[in-house]
């Protein structure tokens, strides 16, 4: 029985758990200029259950891709830990990590730079299959690659071609086929459909849902497309300047929008209907700097509800909105 999306899968076992995870970068520096610390991800805790999709949304540059990479230990965390199926990733040896890689994959946000230009599509999609000895012989490899390409709406003859011979959306689908090839249990999908027209997007969304239902796959779905996130996710997390500011079951978070930033996000959503070209409410002010974040609540300089002496002083903690719902928000004055 497939679990209903939009509500949390409270009983499914945990597959991935991140605790107090941070990822900082050193930036700047040079003659006469000191190096500075950029807090891309700052003390984030997150759980993904088996068979669950957790949607991750937030402003461009708020740390979503960095968080995705930290979860897979593609970059080293500054602090915190990640456990995958009970194993602490930060403690694994290179060899152990390599073996675990098959079980956790990523669809990169930027298909162009994530595909090796000198490899044919066959080699790109088939590489993992060969490394992890998942197919025996040339013919089986050919067949499996052809099948994967077809599932993402490409054609078997595309095997022979090289990345530069494809359109943006075709390249994105090569990245999806590569991630699916090794039959992972968990995939970080970083903007997986951003280059696709809505009909192919629908095909990919359906494919991911099919795989989730038949194989119990889990996804972290990073996307600016709130409609796709809403359609696919059991739970969502809204990020702002390196931190999670609201999280919970999708229907709760997207329905109630307790954090003013979540509200702002929805008010800017362009509805695909020319008759509703209404004036939209936009977030005022400049996006904040992760190098020199505002004191107190990071959103306060742009927040319509901010109160002097509180929001600019005290960092709000992520607290439950109503008991038992799992809906949490980091705001001193959440929307009712």
């Amino acid at each position, binding site marked *: 029985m497939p679990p209903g999306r939009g509500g949390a899968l409270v009983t499914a076992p945990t597959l991935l758990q991140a605790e107090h995870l941070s990822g900082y970068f050193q930036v700047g520096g040079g003659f006469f200029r000191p190096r500075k610390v950029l807090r891309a991800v700052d003390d984030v805790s997150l759980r993904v259950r088996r068979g669950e999709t957790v949607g991750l949304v937030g402003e461009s540059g708020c740390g979503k891709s960095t968080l995705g990479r930290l979860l897979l230990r593609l970059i080293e965390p500054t602090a915190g830990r990640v456990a995958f199926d009970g194993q602490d990733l930060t403690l694994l040896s290179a060899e152990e990590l390599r073996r675990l890689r098959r079980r956790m994959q990523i669809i990169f*946000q930027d298909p162009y730079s994530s595909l090796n230009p000198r490899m044919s599509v066959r080699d790109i999609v088939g590489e993992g299959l060969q490394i992890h000895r998942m197919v025996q012989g040339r013919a089986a490899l050919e067949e499996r690659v052809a099948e994967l390409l077809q599932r993402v709406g490409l054609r078997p003859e595309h095997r022979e071609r090289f990345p530069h011979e494809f359109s943006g959306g075709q390249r994105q689908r090569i990245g999806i086929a590569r991630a699916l090839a090794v039959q992972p249990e968990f995939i970080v999908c970083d903007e997986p459909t951003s280059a696709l027209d*809505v009909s192919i997007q629908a095909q990919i969304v359906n494919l991911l849902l099919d795989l989730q239902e038949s194989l119990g796959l889990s996804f972290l779905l990073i996307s600016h497309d709130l409609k796709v996130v809403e359609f696919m996710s059991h739970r969502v997390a809204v990020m702002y300047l390196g931190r999670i500011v609201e999280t919970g079951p999708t229907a709760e978070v997207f329905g109630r929008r307790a954090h003013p930033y979540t509200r702002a996000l929805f008010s800017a959503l362009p509805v695909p209907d020319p008759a509703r070209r209404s004036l939209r409410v936009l977030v005022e002010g400049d996006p904040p700097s992760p*190098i020199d974040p505002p004191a107190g609540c990071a959103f306060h300089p742009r927040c319509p509800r901010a109160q002097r002496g509180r929001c600019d002083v005290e960092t709000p903690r992520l607290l439950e909105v109503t008991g038992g719902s799992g809906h949490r928000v980091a705001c001193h004055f959440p929307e009712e």
Partner: protein
Amino acid sequence: MSDAETSSAPALEVRGLVAGFQTERGLLRAVDDLSFSLPRGGTLGLVGESGSGKSVTSLCVMGLLPEPHGRILAGSIRLQGRELVGLPEREWQRLRGAQVAMIFQEPMTSLNPVYSVGAQIGEAVRLHRKVSRRDARARAVELLKLVGIPDPAERVDAYPHQLSGGMRQRVMIAMALSCEPSVLIADEPTTALDVTIQAQILELLRSLQQQLSMSVLLITHDLGVVAHHVARVVVMYAGRLVEEAPVAELFARPLHPYTRGLLRSIPPVGSSRLGEARPRRLPTIEGLVPSLLDLPGGCRFAPRCELREPRCEAEEPVYREIAPGRQVRCHRAEEALS
């Protein structure tokens, strides 16, 4: 973006464009007999299936089709009345950036990983304007601020890999706008941006259009963006034009079955709150796009079309105007009109 004031020559006029690639298995026509016109100060939306030839069209307009495999085989592209097809590269260099600029679909195709973004924007500025390095850098900071990059004075020295996907995209936008082009080709300019920054960028383009009477060809998969920001829309499928209409009419009464399928595939807003009523899957258009090297004889959409009848497989429909301002390529379009 506002409708254009009428003026003698359109900002950009493409007629009968055929372009493609010489591949090992024959000539691949990525764009096949494409025509459209972009009015001065106006915005035209270009939508269509992934792989239908939208980016190839923009590369043709920019004179950047990759040589020697890529070629324009026929047709004309006029920029403010001036023919661009066959223009020598020396002339192109004067036009590109200053007269016609492009926001590329994939930022990393045009950002150089070994230079800071400030150096790259500065260089774009200095290509067409006699300014000192210092002033070019100041202009780069100003442009980064304009596109909403926090800490522009600090980030101007960042390398592309140190920026997020959406920040790189905004650097590209800054570069394209740096010389205030009269025609801007925006190929999926906001795919890496959240909806609030997307709205700010589109607002920025709109105001530049008014100030500079810049014209924009907006290629996008985001039908929300189409609905809010363009006046007319052109729809492509497998290298062909299949429909053109004013935006409100396209959404209210799509005439081509592909356009209808596309509009149906948009995920509903508020789906998480539908409970039991939430659809399990999204509607799709069944089947695959035909191979451009092995096209079906009749209508290119026929193999996937729910209205297919024998004549659709036998003869390709011509692209025709069936109502004022409404062009379509479908034998059965009249049925959708009535």
